[in-house]
C-alpha cells in the first residue's frame, strides 16, 4: 500500500513515550506509584490499554523526575514534555493536553459547540500545563481551533447559499452541467476526484511522499503549473499544528522527482 496509517508528524515518538512510561511504572515500587499516581500499581498497569491512558500517566510522572531517574537513569524530562505537548495532530495534542480520549476530541471537533468547548477546556488547563512545561504555548492550538470554526462556518454559508432562492436554481443547473464534463472537460473531473482521493484519506491516511507524483500522473501538473504547484493546491495531509519551530506552514518533506505521464491530454 502506498498510504501510511500514521501521520508523518509523529514517527515513532508516541511509541517511544509509551514504552518508556510503561517501563517506568513497571520499575517503580508499589508505594511510589500509589503516592504519585494515586492508585495501585496493578490498577495503573491494567489501565494503560490505550495511548491516551499512557499519556495521562506520563503527564502525572512529570515533576517526579528525580525519582524516575532512580529506575530509568536515561529519562529525559524535556524530551518527554516535547513528545507529550508539542507533537502530533491537533486531535492528538488536545487529547493529551486535556486528558480526554482522541476519539472524543475528534467527535467534538465536528461541531461548532464542541470546538468552543475544547477552546474553553484548553484555556482552563493552560496554567496547569505550563506548570508541567513552562515553554508550552497554546497559541498554535488556539489558532487551529479558530480555523476549524471558520471552516465549519464557511461550509454553513456555502450550504445556505446553495439553497437560497436566488442561487438554488442556478446552482442546480451548474451542477447538472458538470455531469456532461467528464468527456468534454476531463481536467475538472480529475481535479474533483483528486480532491476526493485527498479528502477520502482524511481518516488519518495520507499519500506518503508521492502526492506530487500522483498529481502529475493524473495530468494535473500541466494545469496547476508544476507538480510542486499541484501539491500546494491539493495537499494530501490533514491539518496538524506545526512542528516546534516549524511555523504554521511547515510541510512534510517533498517526494522524489515526479515523472510526468505523457499523453494525458489537453487542458479543457
Amino acid at each position: 500500500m502506498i498510504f501510511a496509517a500514521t501521520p508523518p508528524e509523529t514517527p515513532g515518538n508516541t511509541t517511544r513515550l509509551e514504552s518508556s512510561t510503561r517501563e517506568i511504572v513497571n520499575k517503580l515500587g508499589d508505594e511510589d506509584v500509589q503516592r504519585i499516581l494515586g492508585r495501585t500499581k496493578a490498577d495503573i498497569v491494567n489501565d494503560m490499554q490505550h495511548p491516551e491512558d499512557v499519556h495521562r500517566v506520563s503527564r502525572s510522572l512529570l515533576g517526579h523526575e528525580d525519582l524516575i531517574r532512580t529506575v530509568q537513569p536515561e529519562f529525559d524530562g524535556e524530551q518527554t514534555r516535547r513528545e507529550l505537548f508539542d507533537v502530533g495532530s491537533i486531535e492528538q495534542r488536545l487529547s493529551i493536553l486535556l486528558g480526554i480520549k482522541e476519539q472524543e476530541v475528534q467527535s467534538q471537533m465536528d461541531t461548532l459547540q464542541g470546538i468552543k468547548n475544547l477552546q474553553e477546556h484548553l484555556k482552563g488547563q493552560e496554567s496547569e500545563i505550563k506548570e508541567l512545561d513552562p515553554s508550552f504555548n497554546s497559541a498554535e492550538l488556539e489558532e487551529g481551533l479558530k480555523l476549524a470554526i471558520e471552516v465549519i462556518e464557511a461550509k454553513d454559508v456555502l450550504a445556505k447559499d446553495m439553497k437560497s432562492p436566488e442561487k438554488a436554481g442556478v446552482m442546480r443547473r451548474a451542477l447538472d452541467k458538470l455531469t456532461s464534463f467528464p468527456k468534454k472537460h476531463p481536467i475538472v473531473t480529475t481535479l474533483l476526484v483528486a480532491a476526493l482521493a485527498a479528502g477520502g484519506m482524511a481518516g488519518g491516511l495520507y499519500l506518503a511522499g508521492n502526492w506530487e507524483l500522483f498529481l502529475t500522473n493524473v495530468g494535473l501538473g500541466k494545469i496547476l503549473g508544476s507538480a510542486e504547484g499541484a501539491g500546494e493546491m491539493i495537499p494530501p495531509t490533514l491539518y496538524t499544528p506545526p512542528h516546534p519551530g516549524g511555523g504554521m506552514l511547515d510541510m512534510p518533506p517533498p517526494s522524489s522527482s515526479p515523472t510526468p505521464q505523457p499523453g494525458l491530454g489537453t487542458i479543457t
Partner: protein
Amino acid sequence: MNTLYLFADEKQLFDKLPNELKEGWQVEEETLSFEDSDVHRKMRMRFFRIHDPKLETFCDQAKKADSVEELANLVQETDLSAVNDADLMELFFVLGPEPLTLVIQNLLNEISADSDLEDLAALTVIRNSLLTSLQKQSV
C-alpha cells in the same frame, strides 16, 4: 444561467470573443476574493464529508492502491455523474476556488461555441459560491 462571474482580467478575455458568441451573455465582475493557504486547505480537508456510496467505494479502493500509477488510473476511470449535489460541493469546497480559476482561464482561451460558454458559466457560478463562503476566511 446566462451570467458569467468573471474577474476583471477574465472579462478582458471574454470581451475579445466574437460578438455572435457573446450575444445573450451577461458578465458580472467577480469582486470576491479569497487568498487560499496550505493551512486552510488542510483544515477544509479535515471537515470533508461525503455520503455517496460510489464516492465511498472510490475512497476504499484508493486506500488499497498499491502504487501511484494504480491510484492515478483509478482517478481517471472515475466519473462523477449521478453524484449528489451536496457531495459535489464538498469536493469543490475541498478544492477551493484557485484550481477552478485556472480551469476557467484556460477555458476562456478555448471558447468556440455557445456550449463552451455554458460550461464556463457553470464553473463561474460554483466559484462564486465558493468565494462567497470563503471570502472572510483568508488566512
